[in-house]
């Protein structure tokens, strides 16, 4: 269960004399649902909200708890439970090839090197990525990279997967493939998107605007609210 209680994130103004900027203001949410989507315009606070969930961003006020663990006081425990997927998988893949990247994730849990390599190969095979195991990550397509990033995150068996606009850089085929993969995940999934079809896959959609939650409910209602708010012209 993810719980945010009166969470605010305030950062100093970018120039001297400028007022502080509120990225999130007094957000309180309890997220027991299996699939939660966060939508909102660019700069609305979606990424800040998601980054709070694995302690990459610390709240300046309030508290964030994941399965009872505070993201401030127990950040290691939180990161062990919450896997994070970036918009650009290249920013997330730290090793030169898929198998090396998955092995890097496994270093903390599997001490034996040969066992680690075998397990990494098996995890890649399970996602039909086995044939790409030794290719340079720079030679993979965007969709393949995103699936490799997901495999690396899932290798440590997190309880929650947080994905920040994971489909933004993908073409239609890869977007559909990732949606299928997400649908099969046993973990709780919290993600943000600008794609309303992807948002509709969730059980609950939270709409963020100006750092505040402005709508929160079933996908049909939240998406209708958001589309009405974003409408331009007559």
């Amino acid at each position, binding site marked *: 269960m993810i719980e945010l209680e009166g969470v605010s994130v305030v950062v100093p103004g970018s120039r001297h004399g400028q007022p502080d900027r509120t990225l999130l203001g007094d957000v309180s949410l309890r997220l027991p649902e299996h699939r939660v989507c966060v939508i909102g315009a660019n700069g609305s606070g979606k990424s800040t909200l998601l980054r709070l969930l694995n302690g990459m961003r610390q709240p300046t006020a309030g508290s964030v708890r994941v399965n009872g663990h505070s993201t401030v006081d127990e950040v290691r425990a939180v*990161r062990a439970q919450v896997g994070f997927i970036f918009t650009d998988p290249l*920013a997330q893949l730290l*090793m030169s090839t898929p198998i090396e990247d998955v*092995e*890097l994730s496994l270093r903390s849990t599997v001490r034996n090197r040969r066992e680690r390599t075998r397990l990494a190969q098996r995890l890649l095979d399970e996602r039909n990525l086995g044939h790409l195991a*030794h290719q340079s990550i720079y030679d993979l397509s965007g969709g393949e990279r995103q699936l490799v990033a997901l495999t690396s995150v899932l290798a440590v068996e997190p309880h929650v997967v947080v994905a920040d606009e994971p489909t933004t850089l993908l073409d239609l085929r890869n977007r559909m493939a990732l949606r299928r993969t997400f649908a099969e995940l046993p973990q709780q999934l919290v993600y943000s998107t600008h794609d309303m079809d992807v948002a509709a896959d969730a059980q609950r959609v939270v709409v963020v605007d100006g750092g505040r939650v402005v709508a929160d409910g079933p996908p049909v209602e939240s998406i209708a609210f958001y589309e009405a708010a974003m409408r331009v012209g007559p």
Partner: protein
Amino acid sequence: MNTHTSVFGIFEPGPGWLFRLPVGWKYLLVLVLSIPTLVVAQWWFTLACLAVVLAVAATSGLVPRRMLRLGWMLWAMLGVLFLFHLATLHPTAAVMRPGNILVAVLAARLLTLTTSLPVLMDALATALAPLRLVRLDPAQAALAVALMIRSIPFLMGTVDDARDAANARGLGRNPARLLTPVMLGAVGYAERTGEALQARGIGDIQS
């Protein structure tokens, strides 16, 4: 985004003897093949070492085409060195200076093309174990080296990106104009890598 062939290459499993050789022996082989060229300092010795490195590679199934795929930037640098010494009437130096660099890089590739990065990291962490005496974590030092190897193609690609952007805006080929975007690209890359480490809890786990 442009990316480059890594100077160190990418490991792919193979059946050759070099692939089966323990990593410690491979490190030793790199030193044995590259250091004598600096000590002997003879043009013919450099060429002989070059031939030996390529022969060692070939006996393990690493064909010259794969061994010599170093990316155009390194080849250009070696070419400039060669021409500079030739123009200053030092033909032996024209062979030795770029030749010794080439021998060292190719000897290093014998290691990196036949050994996976996790194996290299483990070996490096073992070799750096004395760092614990000064309260440094050898595993983190090894991870830093692995991240450096991974970053080379990206950082070389940022030079191409900056040049493409300059050309698109008609800013000409002045290398000085590339400095700022390349530096910003490198800083941005470092920030993203830091975030990824943080998100994956890798620094937390290793420390």
